[in-house]
């Protein structure tokens, strides 16, 4: 892709994000309520963790402070996914009304249009608070651990993108999007804690079927310096394979698009 094309995509994203921001300003009370809800959700779970403090000393070898860091890192990637890929929540309407035809006609990648069409500005304050808290809570981290975290974080973002593409493809095939994305969100909640705490079969499911373990737990383990290089390489290889298969599935789904109601 040349620089000129990249500029077009950048301009599209900036315009769409600006328009989303304008709509948020137009409904200020709604924005305040949504924002409060997001911050309250994180805060209340945090209170729950603190309530466990005198009852649980270690869980799967992690102490409560470490579990809190896992929870904060879970929130970082969960919020990043929502900030950039909120468009998926609006997408079903496009499919069932046939408006997706117009998306396909534009000289831009339809996937890009679907995923980034509604940048969620309301998640940004929660993300900033989470990152500040994470920096406060983090133990001393070496340069190597930080680098490993950044690399595994990028891998996590590729996996999150792949999951959203999968949901978009399911949407084209079945017109069902809302439940599919929520199933992913529900399952991802299991990774608020390191997936190591679960029994073997559940852990396998969370790592290799719906890879929320690789998305949320692996970067956190990299930051703690407890991620083996075998796991790191395995995660990278899995991610590349997973992403390629999902892209193939997306192209297959596009061929089956029926343009219903248009």
């Amino acid at each position, binding site marked *: 892709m040349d620089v000129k094309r990249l500029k077009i995509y950048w301009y599209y994203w900036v315009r769409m994000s600006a328009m989303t921001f304008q709509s948020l300003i137009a*409904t200020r*009370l*709604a924005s305040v*309520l*949504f924002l*409060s*809800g*997001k911050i*309250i*959700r994180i805060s*209340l*779970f945090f*209170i*729950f963790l603190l*309530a*466990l403090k005198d*009852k*649980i000393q*270690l*869980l*799967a070898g992690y102490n409560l402070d470490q579990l809190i860091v896992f929870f904060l890192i879970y929130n970082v990637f969960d919020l990043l996914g929502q900030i950039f890929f909120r468009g998926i929540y609006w997408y079903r309407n496009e499919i069932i009304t046939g408006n997706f035809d117009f998306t396909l006609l534009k000289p831009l990648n339809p996937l890009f249009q679907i995923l980034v069409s509604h940048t969620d500005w309301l998640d940004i304050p929660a993300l900033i608070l989470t990152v500040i808290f994470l920096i406060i809570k983090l133990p001393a981290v070496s340069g190597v651990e930080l680098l490993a975290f950044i690399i595994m974080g990028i891998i996590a973002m590729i996996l999150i993108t792949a999951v959203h593409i999968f949901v978009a493809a399911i949407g084209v095939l*079945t017109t*069902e999007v809302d*439940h*599919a994305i*929520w*199933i992913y969100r*529900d*399952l991802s*909640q*299991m990774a608020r*804690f390191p997936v190591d*705490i*679960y*029994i073997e079969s*559940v852990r396998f499911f969370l790592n290799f079927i719906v890879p929320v373990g690789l998305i949320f737990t692996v970067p956190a383990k990299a930051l703690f310096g407890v991620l083996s290089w075998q796991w790191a390489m395995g995660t990278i290889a899995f991610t590349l394979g997973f992403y390629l298969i999902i892209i193939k599935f997306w192209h297959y789904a596009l061929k089956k698009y029926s343009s219903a109601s248009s």
Partner: protein
Amino acid sequence: MRKYWQIFKINWDSVLVYRFNVLLWRVRMMLSFLTIYFFWGAVFSEYSQIADYSSASLLAYLVVAFFLQTLVFANDSFRITAEIATGDLNNYLLKPMGYLSQWLARDWSLKVLNLMCFMVEITALTLIFKLPVFFLTDWCRWLVFLAASVLAALLYFFFSFLVSSFSFWYPEHNGWPLRFLMLMFLDFLSGTAFPLDIFPQSLAALFKILPTTYFIFFPAQIYLGRLNPGEIVQGFLIMAVWLTVFIFLAKKAWQKGLQIYGAYGR
């Protein structure tokens, strides 16, 4: 009464038109339950006691909470929010039936359907994961539990209507913002994912007077036999007070709301 029975049946049929949707909804409910169940399972694989709960009693609590979640929170009446915001409320104002009563009938048809799904799910999950299902043999406690559960469902219905009526004053985003905020609190304060008495005493005492405690936590405690008769009576009294307050406020909100209702979008 007969017309509400008809509404019950019509809603039942209309929900079953979208069977795949019902199936995915129930899959989500099961996943939510399993998420919580596996977490506590992991905790109890390393600890034998958390607060006053042994592994068996806490996991049994989660199963009862799953049942109550299905009964109390299954509702169609959250659509009231959008009906007010989009002006679709007009369709009902002209019909010879109570707006809230018909929604109550629709809610109960959805609850019965969800409970039937629950029975199948819990049987399957028990066979697969060996859930600690705990059957009551004391009929008296069954009756008290059922009364508390039905009251909890009613309490939630009027509470939810109050939240929906916010749309009369603020119809933006189809009235969804306040409901979103409510759901965030409800997740935590109803006791779906954990019993509320694992928190320190000061917090547990505060929870006792909140209405959200009586949606899931209180009926579940009755089922598990963790309350003495005095505490049960006290709980029912608090529930009755909240129900009276919510019914009164719902009536007021409905009257005031209709006065300013603009039928936007019509």
